[in-house]
């Protein structure tokens, strides 16, 4: 619901809101410009003095106006010709002809009515309403994504479009809400939906005399020019007319014969209200606010583009199921909980594979759970993604409650597969919740088809493995070859390889490939190899499998080569093929950005912790560290003579200041030390670095990363930090395999 509320106004009104925002940004500069151009004003100057000075210079003056930004204009009539000048209040003399800017008028009309009169005004108001709905629903979505109000300003993760969208939103959403609410209030006032307040009636009695000069009038003497809105002079030769004064406090009339105040009325509530709304929307009289709102408005086009991009991506990712069986006919029920749509891709692969195996499969969002209709179902399979920090995705809302509220356990066996990102502390928490309920139900007699399983970062390998387990349970082969939208791959040619570990029965190598040359048009069309940096992932498509395997890059685009550190995985298809490559051989590969595994910006120290081939991206960070930021490397491997990857470079980088320190640990020497031991031995130093604001980056096997986290928890015990706290701040990132 919340997502629909965000999606539809966004897609429909994107162009309209962008137009409003850009024209608004242009207009936002005007009050500041006008205030900067206005001559200096003596704070003690009264309207009486100003009026004297102006009428001395312009005897035919009809009206003096002061704009909220401070520009004073006199309108006069001379020899039958109307004139308008900008006044210097110090002298009462004109300094320039008053000529309203045609550009400002053009942009104003575009902004408020799209040059379409009242229809345009209503359209613009609809745009403001859409912006308000988008802002509020966006804030709620973001709260759900980050896991609470307190985390609203936590570090962002995920693809760049989403991060940019959220980043701009949280910087600017307050401005969007203010601008849209005030826009709606102004529209309401224009169309008399809100009262405008009424000006006081003209005085019934005047002296009938003329001749008092403005300088002698008490009301004008008491009014500072700063509060002036307009002073209207009486018609020459009309003794029934009066001086009319309007200020920021109210308005009144002055007798032109006696100079006495005939009537004064303070501004009513609605008048003041509308003035405040006008000021907050336009920045006139509050130029700094106008500039801030204008700056925020510039974020709107970016948000529109990224928002539509996010929607397009999830729309494209959601496949159309072919041959989806009716719920009552199906033997297998697939329930999908997916926020962005990627889980639907996995569901479609599973759907197709099960159909191929002769099953009748019904796939539906989790929200459509309806056990009463599953008459012929022999199994229920739930595929669910976590959204951000372990929160239920949109299509899974209420599923848990409904499951918990069932009067008795269903008899259809259940399997739960969770999709998530191990980098989030609450990895697969939601799928875990579903499994917990299933366990409770199981105690009542709801059978389990498979134990709960999880898929990290859309890993096709893990999905295929789970498919084999499901096939075993169903007693037939089940081959799940799912490749989530593989980018166009390019042939990479091996140019050199450095051997390691040949004496340790685990061959490993640093492989260096030439950068592919892409045609200029491919590059323009976004089909080139793409830019990359250390920590980004190189996807390799091994021969004989459609599933890419990912390796962390140890280099950046400007290095001019592509380098990865690889060891042979027992039974591994891809690592075997890579290690068999001879210089001149090629593999198909592509780059996938990994924006979360990057050093944070700045000069703060970074603690790099790696084991085995996990050194790859860490070496890349050191190689790229031309700014000589303090990088402290802790590197665990087996033996200094056999698999000390980048041994020579590490020493050279340390001499060049690219590495502040290098601490090694060897598990196959007499010391029998792991990288965890090295961390333990250096506990005081690490605690010190963390208190200085250091970031921790861990790369290596999953078990090693878990061991490192345990040791760091001990190391940090004397400080106020824990690994979990650092992770929440984005100061503890892992790349594990």
């Amino acid at each position, binding site marked *: 619901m919340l997502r629909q509320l965000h999606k539809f106004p966004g897609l429909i009104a994107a162009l309209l809101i962008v137009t409003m925002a850009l024209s608004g940004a242009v207009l936002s500069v005007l009050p500041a410009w006008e205030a900067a151009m206005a001559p200096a004003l003596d704070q003690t100057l009264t309207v009486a003095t100003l009026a004297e000075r102006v009428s001395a210079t312009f005897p035919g003056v009809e009206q003096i106006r002061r704009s909220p930004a401070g520009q004073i204009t006199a309108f006069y*009539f001379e020899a039958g010709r*109307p004139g308008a000048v900008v006044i210097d209040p110090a002298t009462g003399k004109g300094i320039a002809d008053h000529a309203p800017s045609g550009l400002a*008028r053009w942009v104003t009309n575009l902004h408020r009515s799209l040059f379409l*009169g009242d229809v345009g005004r209503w359209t613009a108001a609809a745009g403001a309403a859409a912006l308000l709905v988008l802002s509020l629903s966006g804030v709620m979505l973001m709260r759900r994504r980050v896991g609470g109000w307190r985390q609203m300003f936590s570090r962002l993760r995920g693809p760049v479009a989403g991060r940019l969208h959220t980043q701009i939103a949280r910087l600017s959403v307050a401005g969007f809400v203010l601008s849209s609410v005030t826009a709606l209030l102004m529209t309401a006032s224009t169309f*008399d939906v809100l009262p405008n307040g009424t000006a006081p009636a*003209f005085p019934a009695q005047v002296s009938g005399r003329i001749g008092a000069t403005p300088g002698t009038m008490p009301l004008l003497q008491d009014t500072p020019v700063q509060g002036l809105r307009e002073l209207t002079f009486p018609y020459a030769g009309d003794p029934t007319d009066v001086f009319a004064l309007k200020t920021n406090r109210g308005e009144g009339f002055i007798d032109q014969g006696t100079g006495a105040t005939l009537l004064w009325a303070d501004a009513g509530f609605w008048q003041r209200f509308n003035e405040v709304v006008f000021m907050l929307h336009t920045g006139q009289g509050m130029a700094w606010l106008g500039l801030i709102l204008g700056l925020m408005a510039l974020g709107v086009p970016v948000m529109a583009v990224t928002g539509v991009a996010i929607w397009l991506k999830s729309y494209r990712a959601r496949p159309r199921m072919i041959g989806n069986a009716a719920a009552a006919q199906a033997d297998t029920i697939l329930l999908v909980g997916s926020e962005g749509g990627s889980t639907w891709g996995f569901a479609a692969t599973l759907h197709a594979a099960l159909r191929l195996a002769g099953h009748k499969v019904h796939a539906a969002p989790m929200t459509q759970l309806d056990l009463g209709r599953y008459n012929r179902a022999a199994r229920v399979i739930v595929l669910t993604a976590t959204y951000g920090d372990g929160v239920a995705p949109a299509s899974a809302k209420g599923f848990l409650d409904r499951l918990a509220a069932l009067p008795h356990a269903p008899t259809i066996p259940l399997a739960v597969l969770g999709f998530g990102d191990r980098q989030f502390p609450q990895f697969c928490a939601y799928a875990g919740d579903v499994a917990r309920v299933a366990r409770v139900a199981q105690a009542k007699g709801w059978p389990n088809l498979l134990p709960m399983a999880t898929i990290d970062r859309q890993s096709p390998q893990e999905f295929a493995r789970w498919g084999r387990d499901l096939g075993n349970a169903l007693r037939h082969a089940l081959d799940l070859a799912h490749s989530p939208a593989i980018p166009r791959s390019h042939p990479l040619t091996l140019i050199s390889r450095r051997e390691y570990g040949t004496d340790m029965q685990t061959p490993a190598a640093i492989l260096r490939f030439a950068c592919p040359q892409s045609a200029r048009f491919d590059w323009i069309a976004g089909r080139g190899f793409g830019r990359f940096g250390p920590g980004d992932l190189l996807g390799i498509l091994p021969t004989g499998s459609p599933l890419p395997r990912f390796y962390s890059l140890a280099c950046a685009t400007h290095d001019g080569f592509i380098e990865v550190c690889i060891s042979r995985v027992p039974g591994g298809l891809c690592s075997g093929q890579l290690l068999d490559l001879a210089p001149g051989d090629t593999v198909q590969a592509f780059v996938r950005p990994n924006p979360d595994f990057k050093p944070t910006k700045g000069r703060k120290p970074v603690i790099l912790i790696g084991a085995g081939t996990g050194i790859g991206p860490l070496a890349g960070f050191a190689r790229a560290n031309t700014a000589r930021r303090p990088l402290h490397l802790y590197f665990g491997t087996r033996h200094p003579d056999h698999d000390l990857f980048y041994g020579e470079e590490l020493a050279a980088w340390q001499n060049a200041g690219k590495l502040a320190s290098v601490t090694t640990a060897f598990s196959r020497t007499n010391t029998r030390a792991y990288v965890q031991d090295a961390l333990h031995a250096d506990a005081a130093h690490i605690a010190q670095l963390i208190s200085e604001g250091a970031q921790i980056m861990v790369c290596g096997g999953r078990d090693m990363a878990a061991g490192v986290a345990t040791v760091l928890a001990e190391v940090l015990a004397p400080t106020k930090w824990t690994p979990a706290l650092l992770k929440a701040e984005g100061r503890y990132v892992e790349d594990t395999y």
Partner: protein
Amino acid sequence: MNIPLTALALTTALASPALARPVTMTTNMAQYGGDGAYLALYVTDAQGAYQGSLWMAGDKSKYYEHLSDWYRATAGDAAQIDGITGASVGAGQQLTITLDLADALFDAGYSLHIDAGVEDMRNSPSEIVVPLTSSGAGQPVQGARYVRDFTYDL
């Protein structure tokens, strides 16, 4: 713009269907370089007292106070222009209104006023003041600010 009106809600009993005739009022706007002008057309008697409104060009009541003479006379009373309100008139454009006006309005000291106002520009109350006479019909009257000329034809 042609707006035939059969009756006119003047406050005095000047409009009598039997003794009325169609009057066409043509207002040509000058190139004043601003947004659409608000115009109030109304009638005063020989003493200058407001008698009634003929037309209001412009439909946002919050701007009516800028038609200062009309506003002074009516205190912005919406009932004065009920049913005789139209769109504002852009620079260089023409407003043509045809009304059935009582014969008694002519050659009896009544004057027709036009107040004009444009957003962010000066107010122009009584920019046109023209006596309603049979002989004045068809004679263009020049305005000073926003109105280039005004003519009424019997």
